[in-house]
């Protein structure tokens, strides 16, 4: 009997609510106090293709689905064709022989539970639409779960659709439950047992986490164009626009989205856009604009497999080097790659602070696997989270700086021909231009200048994408150009000092060090445990900050490792390239995957062992 450690899958046709059924089942885990991980795989079409949703429940934290299933709920024949051989010995599957119009032979050691899902749905659920709910009821019957919790979930889920729908679903679930209890009793070897203590966990996607982080950070403007798998950021923000006072604009394209975000940032709002690679491609020109204008903004690129349209609903980590170098010329940007659901929240929050403190664009690289998987996540601890707006001035601060600058300005006016702006740096302590405007691009020690926003009196300046002087007006002299290039570059030095350097996760003395970023990090944490059980000590170097890069620390750590393996979901090993560029260190091996699907823990373990065995 295996209790509270289960991998359940529902599979069926696209368009038939597979994902919402998965969600209900996952919530059963949450309400039972269990850890949950759910991964949806679906093709890029609206109906008829094969959809599946795998939910893993456990008393320990889980980061990834398993390749083996304990219980499969097959809503159509194709599901069985594709997944029957993935069921573990001792596992089972639920199917509807009547509806499939055929009996199904169970593989050795696996039990088939024939349940007339359709018939029950029509009879007890008052319509075929409740068929998934019957299946969930049947699953929970086999698992011996507490139906009062399920009823509660169904009530909550279907409340918006009216009492009748709620009642039908509760009846459908019960009928499914009763059917298996009656026909199969307690024979199934897996059980779910709600834990006694109440645990406050959310069931969220990484996109949800980013949105919550953004809202917490005071994001007031979102412009986005729908693109899988980033659309749910737009949807989430739009749904909460009223409650949180956020302008959310579905724009005509990604070019407009990024350009609007720059406009909003210029006007003083914390602003964000989300997209996937193709949309990001259209944003790069305006990304450079933000770099030049020194406008803070946050851009989330939820990666999917490329090139081009690629595999829209699958996952990959193929945009790292692109994000690092996107747009012509050189300008500072911060590129962050969260490696867990929690990090998506905390780092999204940080991103807005960093963007304003260093007055630059911040790119968050996520990927479909995190963005659309669900995971049980502790409530975020928002205590101590502080909104920091850097050198954004208040009206009073402007007045003060202006007052202080008066004397300096007088002198300058005598020295500077009246018809020209400055060229190069103005006197220390002066923040006024010959036009009596504000020196928005004043050169200061750290490269960051005090910032005004439109509407502020005495804060007037011109933001220009051409090279400009401290006032923002155009000048082409070499002296000024050099100063401005250096000013902008300097901001990253400050940022690097502020960002935590990476450290090894796990045993210092490991035989194998994984080097990874983004969503494979979760899987690797499980792999490390699995390897430990097999007597192999492994640890992990997760890189979170891609730019600026902790060259020194990463180089030292890696050079101290016995055997390093880069693990990435792409074909080129882009993080490995970045590390080589910065440190000159080449990882010993790479485990790469570019099929559009996430690694599973066992796959990683096997590939790791193969490398170890090959080499030693």
């Amino acid at each position, binding site marked *: 009997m295996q209790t509270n450690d289960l991998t359940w899958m529902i599979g069926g046709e696209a368009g038939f609510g597979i994902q919402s059924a998965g969600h209900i089942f996952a919530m059963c885990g949450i309400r039972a106090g269990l850890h949950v991980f759910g991964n949806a795989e679906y093709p890029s079409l609206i109906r008829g293709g094969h959809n599946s949703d795998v939910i893993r429940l456990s008393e320990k934290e889980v980061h990834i689905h398993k390749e083996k299933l304990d219980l499969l709920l097959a809503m159509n024949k194709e599901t069985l064709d594709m997944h029957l051989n993935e069921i573990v010995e001792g596992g089972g599957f639920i199917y509807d022989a009547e509806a499939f119009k055929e009996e199904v032979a169970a593989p050795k050691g696996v039990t088939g539970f024939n349940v007339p899902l359709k018939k029950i749905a029509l009879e007890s659920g008052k319509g075929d639409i409740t068929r998934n709910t019957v299946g969930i009821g049947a699953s929970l019957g086999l698992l011996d779960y507490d139906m009062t919790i399920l009823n509660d979930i169904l009530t909550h889920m279907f409340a918006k659709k009216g009492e009748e729908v709620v009642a039908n679903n509760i009846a459908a679930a019960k009928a499914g439950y009763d059917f298996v209890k009656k026909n199969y009793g307690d024979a199934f070897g897996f059980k779910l047992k709600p834990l006694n203590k109440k645990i*406050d*966990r*959310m*069931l*969220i996607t990484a996109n949800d986490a980013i949105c*919550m982080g953004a*809202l*917490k*950070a005071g994001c*007031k*403007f979102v412009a986005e164009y729908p693109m899988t798998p980033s659309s749910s950021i737009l949807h989430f923000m739009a749904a*909460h*626009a*009223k409650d*949180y*006072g*956020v*302008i*959310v*604009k579905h*724009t*005509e394209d990604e*070019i*407009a989205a990024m*350009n*609007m975000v*720059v*406009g*909003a940032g*210029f*006007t*003083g*709002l*914390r*602003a964000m856009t989300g997209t996937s690679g193709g949309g990001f491609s259209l944003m790069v*020109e*305006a990304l450079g*604009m933000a770099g030049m204008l020194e406008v803070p903004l946050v851009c989330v690129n939820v990666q999917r497999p490329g090139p081009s349209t690629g595999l829209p609903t699958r996952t990959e980590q193929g945009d790292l080097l692109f994000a690092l170098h996107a747009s012509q010329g050189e300008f500072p940007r911060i590129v962050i790659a969260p490696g867990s659901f929690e990090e998506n929240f905390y780092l999204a929050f940080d991103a807005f602070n960093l963007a304003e403190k260093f007055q630059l664009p911040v790119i968050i690289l996520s990927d479909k696997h995190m963005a659309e998987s669900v995971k049980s996540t502790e*409530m*975020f601890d*928002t205590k101590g989270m502080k*909104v920091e707006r850097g050198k954004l001035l208040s009206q009073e601060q402007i007045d003060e700086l202006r007052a202080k600058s008066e004397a300096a300005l007088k002198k300058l006016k005598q020295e500077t021909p*009246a*018809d*020209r*702006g400055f060229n190069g740096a103005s006197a220390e302590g002066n923040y006024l231009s*010959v*036009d009596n*405007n504000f020196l928005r691009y004043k050169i200061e020690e750290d490269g960051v200048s005090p910032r005004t926003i*439109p*509407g*502020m009196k*005495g804060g*007037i*300046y*011109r*933001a*220009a*994408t051409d090279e400009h002087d401290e006032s923002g007006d*155009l000048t082409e002299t070499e002296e000024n150009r050099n100063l401005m290039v250096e000013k902008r570059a300097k901001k990253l030095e400050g940022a690097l000092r502020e960002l935590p350097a990476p450290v090894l996760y796990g045993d210092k003395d490991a035989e194998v060090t994984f080097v990874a970023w983004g969503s494979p990090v979760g899987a690797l944490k499980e792999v490390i445990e699995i390897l430990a059980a097999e007597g192999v000590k492994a640890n992990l170097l997760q890189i979170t900050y891609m730019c600026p890069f902790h060259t020194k620390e990463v180089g030292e750590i890696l050079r101290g490792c016995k055997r390093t393996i880069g693990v990435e979901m792409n074909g080129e090993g882009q993080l490995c390239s970045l590390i080589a560029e910065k440190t000159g260190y080449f990882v010993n091996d790479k485990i790469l995957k570019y099929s559009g699907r996430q690694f599973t823990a066992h796959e990683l373990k096997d590939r790791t062992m193969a490398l170890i065995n090959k080499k030693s």
Partner: protein
Amino acid sequence: MTLTVKDFDTCAKPDWCPGCGNFGIQAALKQALANLGIEPHKTVLVAGIGCGSKMAHWVDVYGLHTLHGRSLPPATAVKFANPELTVVVAGGDGDGYGIGMGHFIHTMRRNVDMTYLVQNNMVYGLTKGQTTPTSAKGFKTPSTPFGSIEEPLNPIALALAMGATYVARGFSGDVMHLTKLIEGAIKHKGFALIDIFQPCVTFNKINTYAYFMQNTYKLEDEKGYDAGDWEKAMAKARQTDKLPIGLFFKTERPTYEEQDPGRTGESLVDADISDIDVRPLMEKFM
């Protein structure tokens, strides 16, 4: 507040060619802002890239000199972020009707409250004289040495077809007239297009001052012309023997920003973001 043109002067002087039509547009804009008494720090002048767009540096208000063809989305965001600001956008015909066409159409649809001045010289000035979407058929330029073979587009007809709420055409050679159009546009609550005939003395030897003087007339001078009549406006827009200038059409409908569900008060810029409570949000997911 009483203001004069001087309040909008900058020390730096425009580097346009002597005689360029943009001087007239700059003068008209400054005069209009002064006449309306809008304090300089309450206006944002957004521009694309091109000769005309450089104007952003030579009117003493907040300036946002963006990318070629991309002035309207940032300008929209400025207005959305802080509707208390007066938003004026300036850019060339290549900028606005060529590369920027998509944004132009969609911004009109939204009826964002802003004034869009298109410095329509029927040529790419800053890149030295190539054909634009408003250039005459047959126009010989470095990119069309055998003459352009595209039909010029009609921005007024286009704006009318898109349901724009203030549609006008000015001529940089008539600053007084243009000033009035700009004033009207800024006062208009909604998206206002002013297509401005702007002679490029260096690269356009066809659409010159003389050409515009000879070929334009004022709608105001036509008895009984009614800027509330869409059909008449469209007929005027399609007139080709003579080119009308003035206000073609004006109507009222709600602006985008006043309907935005995310808007809580007047300007989001002043919202307190120091400690936003996301707990209720988190609880929804439990």
